[in-house]
Structure formats: C-alpha cells, structure tokens
C-alpha cells in the first residue's frame, strides 16, 4: 500500500544523520592532536564521558550544552570549538540509502524539508549542525528548507523565517505552524508525511495533526508506535511506500 503526498519532512539527528562514525577516540583524539596536546586525549575523553553521564546522551550535550564541551572537556580552549565542529562533521554519516531515496522523492516532485529539534540560535547557513551537515554531504539540493524551533532556513536564499521560533516538535506547536505553512503552499496535512525515529517528537504529535507518519528504526528503534503508519529500517523502503499526489 502506498501513500500519496506532496510534501515530506525528515527528522535530522539519528535519522537522516547517522552518528555511528562519531567515536570519541576519533573526534576528541583528533582535536587534541590538532591542538598539539595528544597527551591529553585520554583525560579529555574521560571528561567527555563524564559530561555524558551528567546529561544522559551526547545528543543532549551537543544540542543544549555545547559550551561545556569547550569549558569542561577542553579546559576553556576556545580554539577547540571550531576544530571540534569540523571533526564532528567529518565523522558524521548520512544514513544508508538516504541520498538515493531523496533523489527518488525529488524526481517524483515531492517537496522536502528537514524538521529538526535544533536548540542553538540559528546563524548564517553552515554555522549550525544541520545546515553544515547538509552542505558537507551535498544534500542541500534536495531540500527546500530546514524547519527548527529557532526558525525556518530557506536553503536557496539562506534567509531565516522566525515564525517557527520557540515552537517545538514535542509540544506539537511546530507542527501547527507547519500545517499553516503548508496550507499557504496549497498542501493539506493529509498530503504531507513526517519521517522520524522518535515517537514523542516525530510521530505522535504529527499524526495528531493529520500528517502521515513513517517511523525510521535504522539507527535507534524506540519500539512500535500506534501513531506510525509505517515502520522502516532502511530509507530505501520509502520508495515502495511514498508516491507523489497529483
């Protein structure tokens, strides 16, 4: 059974972006080596792991406590900030089959957006983790925009629309705004599909507002969600599920 849509939204972290290449020894190790401080690798990896115990996951650290990576792990070495971001991007992977699937959807004529829970204030394109990832992996051409609680980035112009500011996926307010935005483009929520891994941010809040939903389990499987119309473990499965609504 296929669903027919005009728009598809992709979650970012642990979904289209696969962090499994981000090993501490590589990222922290390379930063220490670039800082001419290879002797501090083990100590800094230890501190980074302590930080993870404090906040629960590396994703939470990176999205909400990034400054502490510099202050606590890298002993306030400001130089480490840019090197860390660069190395982090170097080791991030695009999920398996992602680009092939994006190409298929774009060829079908479906509009694509990234819908991410970015907590850091947006700056020029390439200064936040999402647009930087898209640029580094050559994926900007597939997406029209990046929608976040910090605003919507128009990828063709680099401009930021602040009507999404302060709205979140988990509360659903971001999807309310998205529904209005899509309606203005002549797309009803029933003609839109949200693809993501987390039931509480990507699936249930979107489903409650009438979006179609696909739960991606290729990196983390959070278990079956009754609000998911489909469950996939490889993005290429989307090619059998999604068609352009004429």
């Amino acid at each position, binding site marked *: 059974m296929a669903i027919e849509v005009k728009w598809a939204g992709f979650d970012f972290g642990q979904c289209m972006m696969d962090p499994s290449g981000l090993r501490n*020894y*590589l990222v922290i*190790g*390379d930063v220490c*080596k*670039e800082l*001419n*401080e*290879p*002797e501090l*690798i083990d100590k800094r990896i230890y501190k980074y792991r302590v930080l993870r*115990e404090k906040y629960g996951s590396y994703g939470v650290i990176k999205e909400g406590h990034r400054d502490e990576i510099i202050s606590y792990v890298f002993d306030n070495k400001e130089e480490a900030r840019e090197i860390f971001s660069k190395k982090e991007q170097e080791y991030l992977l695009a999920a398996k089959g992602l680009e092939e699937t994006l190409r298929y959807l774009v060829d079908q004529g479906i509009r694509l957006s990234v819908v991410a829970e970015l907590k850091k204030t947006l700056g020029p394109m390439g200064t936040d983790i999402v647009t930087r990832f898209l640029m580094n992996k050559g994926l900007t051409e597939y997406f029209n925009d990046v929608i976040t609680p910090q605003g919507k980035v128009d990828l063709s112009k680099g401009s930021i629309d602040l009507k999404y500011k302060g709205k979140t996926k988990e509360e659903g307010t971001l999807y309310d705004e998205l529904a209005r935005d899509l309606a203005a483009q002549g797309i009803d929520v029933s003609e839109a599909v949200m693809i993501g891994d987390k039931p509480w941010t990507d699936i249930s809040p979107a489903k409650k507002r009438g979006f179609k939903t696909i739960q991606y389990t290729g990196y983390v499987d959070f278990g079956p969600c009754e609000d998911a119309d489909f469950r996939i473990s490889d993005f290429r499965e989307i090619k059998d599920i999604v068609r352009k609504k004429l």
Partner: protein
Amino acid sequence: MGIPKRLVVEFDDGSRNEIEFSRLNRQIQADLSELGLCSPPVREVSKSYILLRWQNGWQEIVGVEKAHLELLRYYTIERVEEIGRMSLEVGESYPVLLFVKRLPRQVESALLVDDTGTKVYIFAEKTTITEGDKTEHILYDKKNPKFTTEDSGKADSWVSVLIDSVKAELEKRKLTAEQLLFMDSAQKATVYGEISKAVGIRAMEKQEDVYGFIELMLRKVKT
C-alpha cells in the same frame, strides 16, 4: 618485597649518594613502586570506597575522593573495537609493540626513519584470520611471502618530499636549518609546532615525537 631502607644513586666514578627511604615523599615512593623498585606506599584513607563483588565471589575495591556517593547508573557497552597492532623488530630479544587506535585499517603506509636510513611499507589487507569472535586483518607480515617491502627509492622520495616541505617552511620564515637547530628549546617548540602543522604531521601520542621528528628532518636538510 621487604621494607625499603635507602635510595642509592650510584655514579659512573663509583661515588654514591643515598637518602633514607622514609624521607622520600609519597609521590616519589609511588613513582618508584611503578618502576617495580618497591611496594606502593600505604595511602591515606579515601573519602569513600566502592566494593564490587562478582557472581563468582571475586571482589575488588576502588577508592573515590568524594563523599556522599550515590549510584547514578551502571551499564556496559558492547561494541566491536578495531585496534591496530604494529610490531617492530629492534635487534633485541623482544619486538616493540605499538597500538594504532585511529582508524587502523585505513593506514595505507609507514615510513620508518632514523639517522641512518629509511624504509617504507605499504599496507594492503591480504589475509584474514578468524578465531572465534576475533578477526585479524593482516596488512603486513614479514614472514608471509604475499607481502613485500617497497624498494628504498620509495622511502627516499617520501623523505625528499618531507624535506622539501620543511625547507619551504624554513624559507617562509627566512630561517636556515642551522639557525633553527640552535634556537632555545621553547622557541624551537613553537616553530616545530608551526612547521608540523603546515606539513600536516600530528603526534599519535606525544607532542615531543613531532618535535623530535622535525628536528631529524632539519638535520637531513642541513646535510
């Protein structure tokens, strides 16, 4: 091991200096114990201890210098780790063993260099050995005829490229190799750090290895 009484330093002229062991501070006693010269000193009581007991009754203790501990989490991580082991013949009874932790299977070549000469080895996976849940990917093995050493020309050209890069960096700084070699240690470390960054060489474990390597290249520039 008995109770240590004195630390003796013997000089090449036969003279000796010695000190009562009990006058050494705890850190020195601990350092000597790490060298296997004595037992570790009895340390002061930590603020807290954790005693772990295994299913088979094995017990271990670990001290924590913090009070009022409460367990936050305990978990294990199971993951396949890939570590490179590089063993080197050094003309002694035992080889030297190095561990390569950074993307070990992506190392494509190694240049062995000292004051007397150079050798280059190209790595290519030609054999895989699986034993239980362990897999060894062999990228070079001297005893296996599938692997050959590169001719000395390749090593020489690699070194020449490095020397040329170092020369170019010296020229940018309007310095000669001799001038740099005779700078004081702190100045040298700064310039060596800049040169190594410019030629794209980083230390695997110790920054002093980078400085030593650049100094070796400078000596080759000089000659």
